[in-house]
C-alpha cells in the first residue's frame, strides 16, 4: 500500500529530501472559503500570534505557504500534494474537518511529512489510522465528551436525550458521552441524528426531546447549526424544564454572541474557554483581543498551540521532516489550556477538560468555569506506530 502511494506521488523517482536550510517551510492547510471559513481564519490568526509570541525562542525562521481546502476533501488532498511535492514543505499545519484529515492521512503518512492537526477531531486519526507523522494539538471527539458523561451522572442527572448532526464526528461525540454516562448509571431515553448541514429547523426534534421524558438534553452542534439550535431550544421554552448540556462547540466564544440570551445557562465541556484563570491564558487572551477585538475561541488556541509546538520541536534541533516528526511527538508545555503533552501511544494531545456555563457578563456573554476535569489519555483504539527513523 505504502509503495503504491509513494509511487502515486511520483516519489519513487524523485525522493528528494528538501534542502536542509535554517528556514523551515510550513504548509498551512485550512479552509478559507466554504462553511468553515471563519474557523480557518480563527486558527490562522492564532497560529500567526503563536509564531510572533514564541518565534524568538528558536533560531530558525519560518516561511508559511497557505492553501485553501474549501472544506472539500478532494480539493484539500490536491492542495496537500502540492504543498508536499511542489513547495516541498517541511511540516504541515491545519485541517479543520475530519473528512479532510481522512483524505490527506495516507498522503502525509506515505510521504513522511509531519502534520500538526489544528482542529479535526476524528478518533481514528489517533486510533486505528494513527501515524507517527500526525500529531494532534487540538482534541479528539471522544476526549472532550467522555468526562462529561461521568460528571453529569454525578450531578444526579438520570435520563438524557441526545441530539447531534448525522456524520462521523457527531456520532463519535455522542457515543463517547453515552458510554461514560450509562457506565455511571445514567439512561439514554432517546437519540436523534439530524441531517448534517441540511437541518435549519430543529422544531421537529425539539418536540421529540420534550416528549421523551428526559431530565436533560445533551447535544453536539457547531457553527451555524449551533446558533440555530440554541436559539430554537430557548424559543420552545425547553431550557427551563429540560436543561441543555453539550460539547463546548455548542456555545463557542466564536459565535455565542449571535446566540444571545438563548445561550445563558447552557452547560458545556471543552478543552478551552477564554476565561481560564492562568498566566499563560492571560497573555494569550490579551494578545488575541488586541489583534481582533474579541475573545479567542478554542479554534484560535489550537492554532496558537500548534505554532508553539512547532517552535518547541525546532528548539530540540529538529530541522527536517523526520526529525520534526520525532520531536513533535515529545512536545509538552504549559499553555493557555493548562498542561499539555502528547500521548506517545497515539500522538493525540493530553489536556484537561473544562466544564463551563455560559453566563451574562459585562461585555456580552462569558464563560463561567464550573469544573476542571483531569487530563486523560484516549484509549489506544488500535493505534500501532513504528518510530520514525532518521
Amino acid at each position, binding site marked *: *500500500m505504502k509503495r*503504491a502511494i509513494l*509511487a*502515486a506521488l*511520483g516519489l519513487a*523517482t524523485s525522493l528528494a529530501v528538501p534542502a536542509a536550510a535554517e528556514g523551515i517551510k510550513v504548509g498551512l492547510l485550512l479552509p*478559507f*472559503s466554504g462553511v468553515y*471559513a471563519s474557523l480557518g481564519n480563527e486558527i490562522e490568526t492564532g497560529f500567526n500570534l503563536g509564531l510572533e509570541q514564541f518565534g524568538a525562542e528558536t533560531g530558525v525562521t519560518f516561511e508559511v505557504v497557505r492553501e*485553501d481546502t474549501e472544506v*472539500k*476533501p*478532494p480539493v484539500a*488532498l*490536491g492542495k496537500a*500534494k*502540492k504543498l508536499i*511535492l*511542489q513547495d516541498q514543505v517541511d511540516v504541515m499545519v491545519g485541517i479543520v*474537518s*475530519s*473528512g479532510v484529515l*481522512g*483524505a490527506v*492521512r*495516507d498522503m502525509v503518512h506515505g510521504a513522511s511529512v509531519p502534520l500538526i492537526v489544528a482542529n479535526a477531531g*476524528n478518533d481514528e486519526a489517533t486510533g486505528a489510522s494513527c501515524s507517527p507523522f500526525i500529531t494532534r494539538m487540538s482534541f479528539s471527539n471522544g476526549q472532550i465528551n467522555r468526562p462529561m458523561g461521568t460528571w453529569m451522572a454525578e450531578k444526579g442527572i438520570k435520563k438524557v436525550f441526545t441530539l447531534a448532526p*448525522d*456524520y*462521523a464526528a457527531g456520532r463519535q461525540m455522542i457515543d463517547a458521552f453515552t458510554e461514560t454516562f450509562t457506565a455511571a448509571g445514567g439512561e439514554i431515553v432517546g437519540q436523534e441524528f439530524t*441531517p*448534517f*448541514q441540511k437541518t435549519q429547523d430543529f422544531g421537529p426534534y425539539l418536540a421529540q426531546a420534550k416528549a421523551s421524558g428526559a431530565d436533560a438534553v445533551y447535544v453536539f452542534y457547531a457553527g451555524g447549526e449551533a446558533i440555530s439550535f440554541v436559539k430554537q431550544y430557548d424559543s420552545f421554552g425547553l431550557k427551563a424544564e429540560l436543561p441543555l448540556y453539550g460539547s463546548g462547540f455548542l456555545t463557542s466564544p466564536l459565535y455565542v454572541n449571535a446566540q444571545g440570551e438563548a445561550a445563558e445557562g447552557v452547560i458545556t465541556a471543552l478543552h478551552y474557554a477564554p476565561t481560564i484563570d492562568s498566566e499563560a491564558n492571560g497573555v494569550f487572551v490579551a494578545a488575541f483581543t488586541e489583534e481582533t477585538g474579541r475573545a479567542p475561541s478554542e479554534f484560535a488556541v489550537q492554532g496558537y498551540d500548534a505554532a508553539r509546538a512547532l517552535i518547541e520541536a525546532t528548539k530540540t534541533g529538529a530541522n527536517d521532516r523526520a526529525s520534526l516528526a520525532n520531536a513533535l511527538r515529545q512536545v509538552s508545555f504549559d499553555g493557555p489550556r493548562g498542561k499539555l503533552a502528547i500521548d506517545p501511544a497515539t500522538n493525540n494531545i493530553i489536556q484537561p477538560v473544562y466544564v463551563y456555563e455560559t453566563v451574562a457578563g459585562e461585555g456580552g456573554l462569558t464563560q463561567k468555569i464550573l469544573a476542571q476535569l483531569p487530563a486523560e489519555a484516549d484509549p489506544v483504539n488500535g493505534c500501532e506506530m513504528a518510530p520514525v527513523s532518521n
Partner: protein
Amino acid sequence: MFRHNTLRYVALILLAAGALFQAFTAEYFGLEILTEILILAMLVLALDIVAGFGGMVSLCHGALMGGGAYAYAIFTTKAGIAPPVAMAGAIALTGAAAWVIGAIGSRSHGIYFIMATLAFGQMAYSYVFETPIFGGDDGLGGISRLDLSFIGVDLNDSRSFALFCLAVLGTVYGTSVVILRSGLGRSLTGVMHNEQRMRALGLTVWRVKADVFGLSGMIAGLAGALAAQHIMYISPGLLSWTVSGEALVVVILGGLGTLVGPLIGAAAFVVLKHELSSVTTYWHLVVGVILIAVVMSRANGIFGWIEARWGDRLDRRLADATRKTEEVLTDA
C-alpha cells in the same frame, strides 16, 4: 448533427498539442491541473451531447459523474473487484441510471427538464451523503488506479496518468463525434429542432432521448471513475448540484453545441480557478462576473464567438484555394 470545419480542426490540433506539451514538460502540480482539465473535459463533452445537440439541459451530470466515482470506489475497495471490471461496472451503472432519468424526463421540457434532472441528482447526493457504507460527509479513501503494468505503463506516475487521461479523452471525443453523426445522433438533432414532427414521422422520441442520455451518462461515469483514481479520495461534494452547474457554465463559456468549445471552456475554467484562488478566496465572484459578461455578450461562448467571426471566412478561403488548385490541376 455535428460537423467539423477547418476552425474546429485547427482548435483541436492546438488543444492536443498544448495538452501534450504540458504533459511532457510540466512539473507535479502542472500535471495535476492538466489531469483535472482532462477529466472535466470528459464531463462537459457528455453534457454538450445532451444539452447542445438534444436540448436536454441537465443538472444531474455532476451526480452522474459522482455516481461513477463512488461505484468505482465501492467496487474496488469494498467488493474487491479488479479495477478494469470495476470501471466497466461503474460506466454501465451510471449509463443505466442516466437512461432511466432520460426516459422519465423525456416528457418534460425546458425548465421542467432542468428541475427533473436536478431532483434526481439531489436524490443521489442525499442518498450517498446519508448512507454509512459511502462514508458520509467524510468520504472514501484508499482508491487504487488501473494497473497497466502489463504494457509497461505505471499509472501511479502523474505524467503517465495525465497521458492516459488524454488518450481516454481523445477516445471519448472520437466516440462522441461518431455518436452524433450516427442515425441516433441525427434523430436527436431532429428531436431538438422539432420534436412533434419527429414523432409524426414515426420516431419513438422518448427512446432516442433516453438512449442518448444513457450514453452521455456512461461518459460522465467514465469521467467519475477516472476522477476517483486521480484524487484517490472521493466525497459527496462530487455529486452536488453545483458541480453540474459549474459543468454547465463551462459548456456555455466554451460554446454550446460545438463540442470543441467546451474543451476550451474546461481548460480556461480550471486554469482561471487555480490562478484566481491563489490570489483571492473570493474567486467565485470573478468567475460569476465573467459568466454574466459572456452570457450578456450574446455570443455562443468563447469558441462560438471565434467561430462566428472567423469560422466561415476560413472555410471559404480554404474552399477557394482548393478550387483554384483543382482548376490548375485540370488545366494541366
